């Protein structure tokens, strides 16, 4: 199989799904995280328990939900709980292995902005959707995965607003703030995979997707991105992964 056979987005989605291998429970953000989590259920982790902030535990949708409150998420769930219970007993209760988040802006310590962007002098702040569940997902899940497309607009030197703390300003910040989870452990993009350097907590390039160069990633990153000691190359998507991904997406399009 050659690179012509799949898109950059598919590389991102397949690798995001793979990152869920071995997880028991995943708190799923809508959009790319939901695509990844549903693909994981169809491939590397059929038993993965999907948890949506709308209150569903153990959703098993057959197509990609458009919203976190689509009917199929509730109909196929093991349990549906009130939203306050979801945030208090299940998320804050520390019961969820992985939080899977998207982001508008990420900085080198995997802090996230989804609130406002600075559009320059004299211009009003650009408005983003807001925090949603992210601040407490990032704090309370065992670990956090992130998925977003690589660009200098998204990977910025300095956030315009810290909506959700990743690693703060480096090692020890999460502990100081009493955040129980390990925080972001992987950022999967359409170019490759970044992971925090264990010594500095700074995101470094740790794998490239097939056909992508280090320079391409550095050019798409707003800070001076360093590379890990070893930069691997992700495995190309298998035919089964691609088939599953495309089936999920086409099933999701029927009524849109």
């Amino acid at each position, binding site marked *: 199989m050659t690179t012509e056979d799949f898109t950059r987005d598919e590389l991102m989605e397949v690798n995001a799904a793979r990152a869920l291998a071995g997880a028991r429970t995943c708190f799923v953000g809508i959009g790319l995280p939901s695509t990844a989590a549903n693909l994981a259920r169809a491939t590397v982790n059929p038993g993965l328990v999907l948890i949506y902030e709308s209150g569903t535990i153990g959703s098993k949708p057959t197509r990609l939900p458009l919203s976190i*409150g689509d*009917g199929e998420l509730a109909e196929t769930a093991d349990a549906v709980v*009130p939203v*306050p219970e979801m945030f208090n007993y299940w998320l804050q209760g520390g019961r969820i292995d992985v939080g899977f988040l998207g982001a508008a802006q990420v900085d080198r310590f995997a802090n996230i902005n989804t609130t406002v962007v600075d559009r320059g002098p004299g211009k*009003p702040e650009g408005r983003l959707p*807001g925090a949603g569940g992210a601040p407490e997902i990032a704090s309370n899940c065992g670990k956090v995965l992130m998925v977003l497309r690589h660009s200098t607009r998204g990977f910025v030197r300095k956030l315009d607003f*810290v909506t959700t703390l990743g690693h703060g300003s480096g090692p020890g910040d999460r502990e100081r703030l009493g955040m129980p989870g390990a925080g972001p452990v992987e950022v999967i993009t359409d170019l490759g995979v970044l992971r925090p350097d264990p010594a500095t907590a700074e995101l470094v390039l740790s794998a490239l997707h097939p056909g992508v160069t280090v320079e391409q990633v550095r050019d798409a990153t707003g800070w001076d991105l360093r590379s890990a000691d070893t930069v691997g190359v992700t495995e190309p998507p298998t035919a089964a992964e691609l088939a599953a991904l495309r089936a999920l997406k086409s099933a999701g399009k029927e009524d849109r």
Partner: protein
Amino acid sequence: MAEIRSLHDAVADLVHEGDTVAMEGFTHLIPYAAAHEVIRQGITDLTLARMTPDVVYDQLIGAGLVRKLIFSWGGNPGVGSLHRFRDAVENGWPRPLELDEHSHAGMANRYVAGASRLPFAVLRGYRGSDLATRTDTVSSVVCPFTGEELAAVAALNPDVTVVHAQRADRQGNVQMWGLTGVQKEAALAADRVLVTVEEMVDELTPRPGGVVLPTWVIDAVCVVPGGAHPSYAAGYTVRDNAFYQAWDPIARDRDAFIQWIDENVRTEGAVAR
């Protein structure tokens, strides 16, 4: 005790200019018909509260009825931005929009405190976030047993909460099921409660996942079949995802938006309700 009323009369009596109004619903059971009635009646200077303001609040904001929004995530889920919301925040059109912005966990707990008639709720939240710098409804408390500092959020007690549900009996007891989100808390936190339902039945037979709001915590029940469209009522209607996608280009353009509201909401008996 709930009175069974026309939507027009219930909205006119229960939703007042300047009120704080919560129209809750997590994708499911969003009370569009009631919101459109608010637009038709031109009830203005509202503070709107909702965890996930979506297209229905985009419409109220674009219609110029909203002075403040209390929320935690404002978007058209799976589609993109709320353009009327953005236009109001970024450009003050048609009027400036004040924001009180939280995380979902914080908003959910604000309603819990409201329903519990406590002045605040406690959570392990907002840590390391700039959110608390832009609101006066997040503070902190220290645990008297462990000394841990935790976030405190102020109770949210709307003047009126509006929800849509599947059905009611003739006494005005209301039953909903499926994703029931934060609706019970939003209703119990409010001074007044208005419920639109798909159907009136003689008896509310128990349902899996069913939540019942007794008639004596509700002020008005209005029978409005399809009253959640383009949201949905599980067991009655399905989500009109195509509408949510079609909304994007309408909301991007001020004139297209005004025309849509005029034709589909302000015109009595309009198709889109």
